[in-house]
């Protein structure tokens, strides 16, 4: 079945996105420094844009589809857990903050790896970082891509390959021609759609459920545990939930796709405004979407596949055109995450590998054509894998988030704030973080009742400090 009322808003949404891509392409062609413009938008972002691109990059398929599905089954405890994401709005920007902005300008850094390269002056650091970024982000891009296509498939009734093609062509065209500026501008629009969609759906669900009191009473009758912080099956222990603060709140500082945004804004005022707007935006979306998942239970009982809760609920409680707008929100969330990853992986190939190792003297023209081609080829490769995702990629995607945090967090943060941080410490902590993360994930993901990411982050910190101190003389 094809739902026209849903397709029309989605279609308008895609048209606007194309228009932004072409407009940004004009800026790219006029820019003095192609690299800085294409991969960083010329460091001109204002507060609103910065807040939106942070929020939209961070909020992905899991905030709109997966998360509400789990909340549907777990109850209010899962909303509590989701609120650990609030620091992602202010903590990241305050920690990286002005220091990162100053240093990255001084180093003329365009990518996160650029910054690490100048800070640690080590090829091993570059290679390790480039590999982690390419491998993990390629995998998560594929996963998001599959999610986006599946969503289009379920909303419009189109077949999966067709849905994938629509999704891929849209993203590829505007990212390839428009670069970072197009990514940030479309993020602003997509972020706005995400917030508005959340608010509309929350109100619609509360009305459909006959008010919050009514809904809470039904939940208590079904299973009183749904109203506790411990989850419907009592599995959410305080320690376990608390360690999520590291994964989805504090550790976000170490995510390359987030960190690169913290060097692309214009001035102090942009940062200040972005902190406030970003926190309000993330708070609204995370609270709203997860609460919606819980409230959906009495409204639409008996959904077995968690991922279907949000789309089915929208079609159930909202009139068709509003449903179309709300369903553009997860689309926007997926697209805005994918576009950020695509431009980041492309910059890693062009700036960190091609320009650093292969051809340091490339002309402006060569860089330009390489950048367009690399972005296109990566995009096509992702489409190819997304048609029939190999097991290995799915497996990698599962720990892309925590894996990247374990690899980068301390090299970025200690590199900024600790003078004695050196390349030996950085390499040691990257290797420790990554290996430990994969090992724990394989052997015992809930080790000591904590989330997988906790130990790798703690241990790689200790390793970083100890190794840096022990090698002070060698480094100088």
């Amino acid at each position, binding site marked *: 079945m094809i739902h026209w009322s849903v397709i029309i808003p989605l279609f308008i949404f895609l048209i606007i996105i194309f228009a932004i891509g072409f407009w940004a392409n004009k800026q790219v062609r006029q820019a003095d420094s192609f690299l800085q413009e294409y991969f960083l938008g010329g460091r001109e972002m204002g507060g609103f844009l910065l807040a939106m691109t942070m929020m939209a990059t961070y909020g992905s398929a899991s905030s709109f589809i997966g998360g509400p599905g789990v909340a549907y089954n777990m109850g*209010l405890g899962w*909303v*509590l857990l989701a*609120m*650990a994401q*609030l*620091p992602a709005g*202010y*903590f990241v920007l*305050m*920690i990286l*903050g*002005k*220091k990162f*902005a*100053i240093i990255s*300008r*001084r180093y003329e850094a365009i990518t996160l790896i650029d910054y690490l390269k100048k800070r640690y002056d080590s090829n091993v650091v570059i290679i390790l970082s480039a590999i982690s970024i390419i491998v993990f982000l390629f995998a998560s891009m594929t996963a998001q891509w599959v999610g986006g296509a599946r969503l289009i498939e379920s909303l419009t009734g189109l077949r999966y390959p067709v849905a994938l093609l629509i999704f891929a062509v849209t993203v590829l065209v505007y990212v390839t021609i428009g670069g970072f500026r197009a990514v940030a501008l479309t993020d602003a629009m997509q972020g706005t759609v995400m917030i508005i969609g959340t608010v509309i759906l929350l109100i619609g669900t509360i009305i459909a459920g006959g*008010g*919050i*009191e009514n809904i*809470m009473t039904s939940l*208590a009758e079904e299973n*009183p*545990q749904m*109203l*506790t*912080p*411990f989850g419907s099956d009592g599995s959410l222990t*305080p320690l376990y939930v*608390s360690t999520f*603060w590291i994964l989805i*709140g*504090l550790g976000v500082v170490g995510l390359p796709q987030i960190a690169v945004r913290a060097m692309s804004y214009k*001035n*102090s*005022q942009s940062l*200040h405004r972005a*902190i*406030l707007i970003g*926190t*309000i935006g993330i*708070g609204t979306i995370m*609270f709203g979407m997860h609460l919606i998942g819980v409230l959906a239970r009495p409204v639409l009982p008996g959904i077995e596949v968690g991922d279907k809760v949000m789309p089915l609920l929208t079609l159930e409680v909202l009139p068709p055109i509003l449903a179309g707008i709300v369903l553009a929100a997860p689309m926007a969330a997926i697209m805005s995450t994918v576009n950020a990853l695509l431009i980041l992986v492309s910059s890693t190939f062009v700036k960190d590998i091609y320009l650093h190792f292969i051809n340091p003297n490339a002309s402006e023209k060569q860089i330009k054509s390489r950048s367009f081609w690399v972005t296109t080829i990566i995009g096509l490769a992702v489409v190819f894998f997304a048609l029939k995702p190999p097991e290995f990629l799915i497996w990698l995607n599962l720990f892309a988030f925590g894996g990247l945090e374990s690899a980068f967090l301390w090299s970025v943060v200690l590199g900024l*704030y600790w003078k004695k941080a050196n390349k030996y410490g950085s390499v040691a902590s990257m290797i420790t973080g990554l290996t430990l993360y994969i090992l724990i994930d394989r052997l015992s993901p809930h080790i000591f009742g904590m989330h997988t990411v906790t130990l790798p982050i703690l241990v790689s910190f200790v390793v970083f400090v100890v190794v840096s101190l022990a090698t002070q003389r060698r480094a100088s």
Partner: protein
Amino acid sequence: MQDPRFKVANREAIIGIVLVVVNFAIWYGFAYGLGSKDPSEYTYIASFPAWFFYSCIAGTIFMIVLIWITIKLFFKNIPFDDGREEQ
């Protein structure tokens, strides 16, 4: 000599850490302080269980206001480019 702008940046990073600690304390304290009894003994505020209202709703609004005040009071405008003054 240390760049005076770094002093500003360092102080703001420390403020970030303090805010997270406050955020975590409110979130954890209300959730498990009020939410650990049997659900039949829960009190309700605005139709939500009290722990949820304070931890997730009031706590979040409080944090946003606190962040706003902190930025207004303590965050400074500094130039990012070396050797160029910001108007």
